[in-house]
C-alpha cells in the first residue's frame, strides 16, 4: 500500500470515527438528560433527604439515621409492610388463575375470543375509575351485597367490605386480581403459543389427554416464565399502590408501604422519613432482584425450552 492510499484510508477512518461520535453524542444527549433528571438525580436526592428532618420548603435538620430507625419502629410503617402480604396472596391467586385460563383458552374453546377479551379488559380501566367502580361495588347494600343476597346470604350479617379492618385488605387485594389477572393471562397465552405445535401433535398421536398435555408439555415449558412472574409479583407486592390509593386512600388500616410514603411526604410533610422509606423499599427490591437472578440461574441454568 503506498503512502497516498494509506492517508486516504486514514482520513476515511477518521471521518468515520468523527461521525460515529457525533451520532453517539447527539443521539444520547436527550435520553440521557431525561434519565439523569428523572431517575438518578431523584435517587441521589432521596438518599440525601433521608438523613434530614425536613419538609419540601423551609429549614432542615441533619438527624443521621433516625429516619431509618423510625422506618423499622413506627407502628404505621410496620403495619404497611405487613399489608404487602395481602397483595402477595392475591398475586399467587392471580397467577394461578391466569395460568389456568391461559391453558384453557389455548385449546379450542367456543367463544374463546370473547372470554379472553372479557377477562383481559379490566386491565384497560383507568386508575381512578377503578377506585370508583370498587367503592360502588363494595358499598353497603349495592353490588356485592345484592349478589350475595341472591345466593342466599343474610344481608344483615354481611360486613362493611371497605370499612372493617378484619376484611378490608382482602377486599382491596381482590381488586388487584380483577385488574391484573388478564394481563398475566395474555402473557402466558403468548408463551404457550410459542411452544412448537409439533409437541402437541406428537402427544395427541400418543393419545395424551389435555390434562396430560398441560402436565408434561405446557407446564415444564412455561416454568421459567412462571418463575419470573412469581418473582416480579413478590417485588410488586411490596410496592403495591394504586388499589388502596384510589379505593380507600389508605384509610382504616389499608395503607400499603407506598401509600403511607406518599401520605407522609405530601400530606404530613415528613419528607425525610418518606425518603428513608423509599430507600428501604428500593433496597428490598434490589436484594430481591439479585436473589431472583441467582435463583433463576440455579433453576434454569441449562437454557430450558428456549421460551425466554
Amino acid at each position, binding site marked *: 500500500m503506498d503512502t497516498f492510499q494509506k492517508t486516504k484510508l486514514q482520513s476515511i477512518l477518521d471521518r468515520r470515527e468523527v461521525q460515529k461520535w457525533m451520532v453517539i453524542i447527539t443521539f444520547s444527549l436527550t435520553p440521557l438528560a*431525561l434519565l439523569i433528571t*428523572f*431517575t438518578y438525580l431523584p435517587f441521589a436526592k432521596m438518599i440525601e433527604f433521608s438523613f434530614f428532618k425536613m419538609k419540601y420548603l423551609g429549614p432542615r435538620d441533619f438527624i443521621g439515621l433516625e429516619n431509618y430507625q423510625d422506618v423499622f419502629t413506627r407502628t404505621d410503617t410496620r403495619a404497611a409492610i405487613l399489608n404487602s402480604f395481602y397483595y402477595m396472596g392475591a398475586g399467587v391467586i392471580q397467577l394461578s388463575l391466569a395460568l389456568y385460563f391461559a391453558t384453557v383458552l389455548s385449546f379450542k374453546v367456543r367463544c374463546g375470543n370473547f372470554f379472553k377479551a372479557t377477562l383481559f379488559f379490566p386491565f384497560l*380501566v383507568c386508575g*381512578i375509575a377503578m377506585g370508583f367502580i370498587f367503592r360502588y361495588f363494595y358499598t353497603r347494600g349495592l353490588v356485592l351485597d345484592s349478589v350475595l343476597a341472591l345466593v342466599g346470604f343474610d344481608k344483615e350479617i354481611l360486613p362493611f367490605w371497605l370499612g372493617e379492618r378484619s376484611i378490608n385488605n382482602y377486599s382491596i387485594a381482590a381488586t388487584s386480581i380483577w385488574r391484573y389477572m388478564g394481563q398475566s393471562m395474555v402473557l402466558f397465552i403468548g408463551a404457550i403459543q410459542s411452544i412448537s405445535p409439533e409437541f402437541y401433535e406428537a402427544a395427541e398421536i400418543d393419545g395424551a389427554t389435555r390434562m396430560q398435555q398441560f402436565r408434561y408439555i405446557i407446564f415444564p415449558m412455561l416454568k421459567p416464565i412462571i418463575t419470573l412472574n412469581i418473582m416480579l409479583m413478590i417485588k410488586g407486592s411490596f410496592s403495591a399502590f394504586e388499589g388502596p390509593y384510589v379505593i380507600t386512600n389508605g384509610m382504616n388500616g389499608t395503607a400499603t408501604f407506598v401509600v403511607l410514603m406518599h401520605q407522609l411526604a405530601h400530606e404530613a410533610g415528613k*419528607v425525610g422519613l418518606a*425518603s428513608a422509606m423509599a430507600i428501604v423499599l*428500593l433496597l428490598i427490591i434490589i436484594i430481591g*432482584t439479585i436473589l431472583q437472578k441467582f435463583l433463576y440461574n440455579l433453576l434454569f441454568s441449562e437454557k430450558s425450552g428456549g421460551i425466554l
Partner: protein
Amino acid sequence: MRPKTQYALRLCTYLSLALGAFVSLLPLVTVLFASFKTPKEFGFSGALAFPQSWMYLENYSTAWEKAKMMLAFWNTSLILIFTLAGSIITGTMIAYILSRFSFKGRTLLKGAFLMANLIPGVTMQVSTYRIMTSLGLVNSIPGIVMLYTGTDIIAIYIFLQFFESIPHSLDEAAYIDGASYFTIFFRILFPLVKPATVTVLILKGVAVYKEYYLANLYLQSKTRYVTVSTSLYTFTGEYGNQYNYICAGVMITIIPALIAFIFLQRYIYNGIARGAVKE
C-alpha cells in the same frame, strides 16, 4: 378417557370460563346500569336491576360538564401524542447507538438505562416532586410529558432487542454506498423497527391513558390541566355519594378504552405479551 368424564370436564371448563367472565364484567356492567338511572330511581332500584330507560342521558351530560371532560380529552390527547412521539424518538435513538457502535462507556450507558428499570417510578416521587417544582414543571403539560418519556424504560428495552435482531451487514452495506450514520438510522433502520414501534405505542399508550398518580400529583390545577384519568377526581368532593353521576363519568373514561380495544385487540395482546417479559 370415557366420553362421560370428558363431557363433565368440558362442562366444568365452560362453567369456569363463564364464572370468570361474570366476575370480570359484574363491576363494569353494574356501573353501566347505574349510569342510566335517575337519582330517584337509583334510590329505590337494586344495584343489579336494569335501568328503566337506556335513553336517560342526564347523568352523562352532567358528568361531562362537571368533570370538564372536553378539556380532559384534549389534554390527554396532547399528552399521549407528545409522550408517544418522545418515547419512540428517544427510544430508537439510544437503542441505535447502543446496538450499533462499540465505544468507551457503552456498557456503562446501557447499564444505566437498564438499571433504571428496576426502580418502581412511584417510589421516586418524594424527591422527583422537589425537582419538578424547582424546574417549574409542575402544572405543565410539557413537564408531565418529559416525566412520562424519561421514566418508563420499557421502550428503550424493546427497541434495543429489536435493533439487535437486525443484521449489521445492512448498515455496513449502506455505509459503503456512501450513506451517513444519520441516513442509515432515519432511512434504513427506523422504517424497519415498525413492529417494535407498534408494541411501544400500545404499551405506553395504555400506561399513560390509565396513569393516575403522577397526573394527579403534577397536574394539580384541575381547572386547566385535567386529564381523562384525573377528571373523575371532581367526584371525590361534593358529589362523593352521587353514584349515578360518578358511574356515568366512569363510563365516559372507559368508552375510549373499549373502542380502542375492539379495534386494536390483536396488537394489544401482542404488545402485552412482548412487553411484560422485562428481564
